[in-house]
């Protein structure tokens, strides 16, 4: 048996810390680190202190949470469905969250209470997860099919909201929200979503033993005493809670959940249980670095996070396909 190379987790954590530090210093408004430190020591409030504590720290925290959630969700679903193409949005949860948030924008509720968007987004994700579970709980294939159906339903709802948008401005707001971003979210919104994300992580953290057994096949896993229905329910609840809350905060951010597990597999081996944590850490790193790149790339209109992850993610994906073609006979 080939031993997988040593887990590069400490290296990734060090990179993550460095990226988090950079994320506090780098922004559209360039303030030299000296000015930043002076600002933190000077009487408050002042510009540097406001920018760091009210804008850059929440943005960094959110990028880390959303990235980790997507990486973890992708790794769990790829294990559960035994499908390398699985990504966190596959079960309709992201679509449900996006639809909930868009409903808040559509009816103008978002303009009155800042917390309505994440609340309705989370409600949408949970409803979508429940619907997927209701129809698809009997097996892997039915779960995927039910997930596609729910995703389709949510996409139809989004298209309907754009179709009947009360004004061009509302349509514009909906489309830009859907592009995905972690910029300028309020602390109160982050505080609201954190318990849901943590609860989701807990559910997902209970799945590794079952996922390992599942690599042998469904019948073998059941004979090893794994309750597959329970495992599916846990994974789906975890994804609905964490990915749902993450999407409700940040909009649709593609490819991180799909790519992160693939990129850590060569380093940590192919057992699902060994991939979860590195994939979460790598997802966080990937999203944070992308978010820093957005601030550095000079664009006249703000480049949205979801757009850049998709742009970067696609070539990675082609590379994966080529690698799979080389590996398979």
């Amino acid at each position: 048996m080939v031993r997988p190379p040593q887990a590069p987790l400490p290296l990734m954590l060090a990179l993550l810390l460095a990226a988090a530090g950079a994320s506090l210093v780098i922004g559209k408004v360039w303030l030299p680190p000296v000015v930043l430190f002076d600002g933190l020591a000077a009487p408050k409030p002042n510009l540097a202190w406001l920018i760091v504590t009210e804008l850059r720290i929440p943005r960094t925290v959110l990028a880390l949470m959303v990235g980790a959630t997507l990486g973890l969700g992708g790794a769990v679903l790829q294990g559960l469905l035994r499908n390398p193409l699985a990504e966190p949005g596959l079960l309709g949860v992201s679509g449900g969250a996006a639809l909930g948030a868009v409903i808040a924008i559509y009816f103008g509720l978002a303009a009155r209470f800042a917390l309505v968007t994440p609340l309705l987004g989370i409600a949408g994700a949970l409803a979508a997860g429940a619907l997927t579970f209701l129809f698809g709980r009997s097996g892997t294939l039915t779960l995927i099919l039910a997930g596609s159906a729910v995703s389709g339903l949510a996409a139809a709802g989004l298209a309907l909201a754009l179709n009947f948008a009360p004004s061009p401005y509302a349509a514009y707001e909906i489309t830009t929200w859907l592009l995905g971003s972690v910029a300028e979210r309020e602390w109160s919104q982050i505080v609201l979503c954190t318990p849901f994300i943590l609860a989701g992580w807990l559910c997902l953290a209970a799945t590794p033993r079952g996922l390992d057994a599942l690599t042998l096949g469904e019948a073998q896993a059941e004979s090893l005493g794994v309750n597959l229905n329970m495992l599916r329910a846990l994974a789906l609840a975890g994804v609905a809670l964490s990915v749902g809350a993450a999407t409700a905060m940040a909009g649709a951010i593609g490819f991180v959940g799909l790519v992160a597990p693939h990129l850590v597999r060569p380093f940590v081996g192919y057992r699902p249980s060994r991939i979860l944590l590195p994939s979460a850490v790598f997802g966080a790193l990937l999203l944070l670095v992308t978010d820093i790149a957005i601030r550095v790339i000079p664009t006249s209109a703000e480049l949205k996070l979801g757009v850049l992850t998709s742009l970067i993610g696609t070539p990675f994906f082609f590379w994966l396909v080529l690698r799979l073609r080389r590996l398979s006979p």
Partner: protein
Amino acid sequence: MMLCNDVLLLMMVPKDRIASITYLAHDAVEALLPGADTGVAVNHGTAEEILLQKPDLILAGTDSAPMARKLAKAVGARVVEVEAAHSFADIRRIVRQVGEAVGEPGRAHVLLAEMDGNLAWLASHQPARPLRVVAWSGSQAVPGRGTLTNEIIAASGADNIAARLLDNRYGSFGLEALLAAWPDAILQGETRWSGPSLQDAQSMHPLIERYWHGRRIAYPDAAYACGLPQSADAAIALRNLYRELPAGRLRW
């Protein structure tokens, strides 16, 4: 099929000469000429409606002109293509153009004289210290140089900070740049419009609520989207609102 043209049309000719206006015009009419469109037929820019209403003249926007020409041939109508106005000079041009097209050059002259009178009054009553303002309702599509909003702000005697921050006509800058620029007041567009006001109803980032409380000015999106003689009234309304702002510079 271009709502700004329709508002202009409602000011130029009596209702019985109007075959139809676009359904999109209603909000703008409510903001600028309340009630002026009651009883006027609407169209949705479809061929069937045009064939049914058989107009003699179609006022088209730049985007809808090709389609309008095709339809016009079918009903034997004339097409006049009216560009969107991004400055007071543009407004003078299109008002004269539409006035000629509908056979009311005198009415166009009266409307423009009124506008130029308002602009002259504004120019002769400049505030001692120009306020630094920006039209910012979230980080997207902030109007900079070359936009009608910029012209209205300039005419109102204020300094649009977006004109210096952006290279494009419309651009985006986030809260970081807004904090660093530290404007005296923030203008925010409203879709549903009930008159100019200092607004605090619309929820924004807590930083905006904290520091620009009482310094947020609501304006009707529709009025700033259309270059019309009323654009000078919009500038006067802005000037009057500046007086309601808290005195002195904004402090941390």
